């Protein structure tokens, strides 16, 4: 019995240690963001601010106009999320539940595309968008997040488990295919839509390389791009950089915490079936 006790104690010690290591860098970031300029660069490195201050956040929003970047990030991420839900839910549902010639072969060839790194498409995509005058526009920035093979895949796998009888019953009642999708299927697959929405928002919000390439005007930069530029000029201002990092992470963290139940379940389901 004592051995069992010891095992349980060790198990929880391990669980707590991992949690501590996971959270420590983020906790330090949050703490340092409230320190006075220069305070973080003293010895021994302080863990908590001596006199917490909002000065770094004020500087970000007034002196450095970061609110513009916050806005750019929000516009791109929200539009990408809405667009992705529309486009990918229609396609994922069709691949799962509507019979048409060549469907499964087409889906198979889409899945092959998952192996292709997005970076391979980036150079020509940039040149293409330049021809379309979409460089340095939000439209150009959100193009890659709209249709996604992963999104279609996610929706299709989930929709496969919706019983056909449910859809056929609506058809017999005279519903059009669009009505069947909107009124019968959508409410049933809502959990996976939430997963996809959270997933798209987080990818668009956190993405770095594509906005770095496509947005040249610093007022239009998303937060990660603005932050990467800021670290070049303000590398000595640890506290300011931590405030900027925290500001960038916070919306992503909040979206995750609000939707975490469905989001986590979606990832676990996707992994198993994939």
């Amino acid at each position: 019995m004592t051995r069992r006790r010891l095992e349980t104690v060790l198990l929880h010690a391990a669980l707590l240690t991992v949690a501590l290591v996971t959270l420590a860098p983020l906790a330090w970031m949050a703490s340092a963001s409230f320190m006075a300029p220069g305070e973080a660069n003293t010895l021994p490195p302080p863990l908590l601010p001596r006199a917490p201050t909002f000065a770094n956040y004020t500087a970000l929003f007034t002196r450095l106009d970061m609110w513009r970047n916050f806005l750019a990030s929000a516009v791109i991420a929200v539009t990408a999320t809405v667009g992705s839900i529309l486009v990918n839910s229609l396609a994922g549902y069709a691949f799962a539940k509507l019979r048409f010639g060549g469907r499964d072969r087409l889906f198979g060839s889409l899945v092959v595309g998952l192996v292709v790194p997005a970076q391979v498409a980036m150079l020509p995509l940039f040149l293409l968008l330049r021809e379309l005058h979409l460089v340095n526009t939000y439209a150009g920035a959100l193009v890659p997040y709209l249709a996604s093979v992963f999104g279609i895949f996610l929706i299709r796998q989930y929709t496969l488990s919706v019983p056909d009888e449910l859809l056929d019953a609506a058809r017999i009642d005279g519903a059009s295919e669009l009505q069947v999708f909107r009124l019968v299927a959508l409410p049933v697959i809502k959990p996976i839509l939430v997963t996809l929405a959270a997933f798209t928002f987080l990818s668009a919000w956190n993405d770095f390389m594509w906005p770095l390439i496509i947005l040249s005007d610093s007022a239009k930069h998303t937060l990660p791009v603005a932050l990467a530029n800021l670290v070049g000029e303000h590398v000595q201002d640890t506290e300011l950089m931590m405030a900027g990092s925290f500001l960038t992470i916070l919306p992503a963290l909040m979206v995750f915490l609000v939707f975490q139940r469905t989001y986590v379940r979606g990832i676990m389901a996707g992994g198993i079936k994939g």
Partner: protein
Amino acid sequence: MSTGCARAQARAGWLFIAPALLLLATFFVLPVVAGLLLSLTDFDLYAVADPGAARFVGLNNFAAVLADDAFWRAFANTLTFVLIGMPLSLAVSLAAALLLDHRRARLRGLFRTVYFVPVVTTLVSVAIVWRYLYHPRYGLLNYGLELLGLGPIDWLGDPRFAMPAIILLAVWKNFGYNMLIFLAGLQTIPDELYEAAAIDGAGPWQRFRHITLPGLAPTALFVGVTTLIGYFQLFAEPYVMTQGGPLGATRSLVLLMYEEGFRWWRMGIASTVAVLLLVITVVAALVQLRLQRRPT
């Protein structure tokens, strides 16, 4: 089902997938194909101004890139990141999943959420945070080492430590994702197997070796290949933390591609690097599928 209904369904099917197909064809398939063509041209700064100035040069770019030390250096750096970072990250993911899956573990949901938090954080932000944690003088990591009587290590300034430092960050950032998938995999292994093994007198290690590991094989295959593909795309960490330095020790293939394409506007050369990255990724994924499918 009547034929009219079937026809309506087929029409609806094509209409429903049309927006997605159109977007993917225009903004993904077309660029990938164009990238292959671009790698066969001398598309450079002049061609950016006037695309007509680009000329077909056959495989010259490939010959040039493959003869360039900078490419092989970036290849070696990326391979180091993949070959050390991926197994390490998978091991941590599996260990965390096993801890969470333990029958007597309390507060599982809370721990699971906490472990997943780094995954949803912004890579650029955490790369900046870790850059300060790695600071040779004021960084908490070196402070901790000093308390243990070790260091100080110039993590990001020393060519020997810069890549390990980036790997450490990547493992911390990513382990939660695969942990979830392993956790889902663990839950598909029936409890009766463990109970039967326990009755037969199998110890914890034997149960892990002969029930858990084989039971996780399909999950490990999925996780292994997706992680491999993701790790070959290393970019933001070196961009933010080291700019590829010190002495090129952290310049990855994608960073090389970015610099060639968008700093020097040598689009032909950059596309060649991109095509080689695609080839390397596909070959690596196939090799891994072969290795993991082999019954153990």
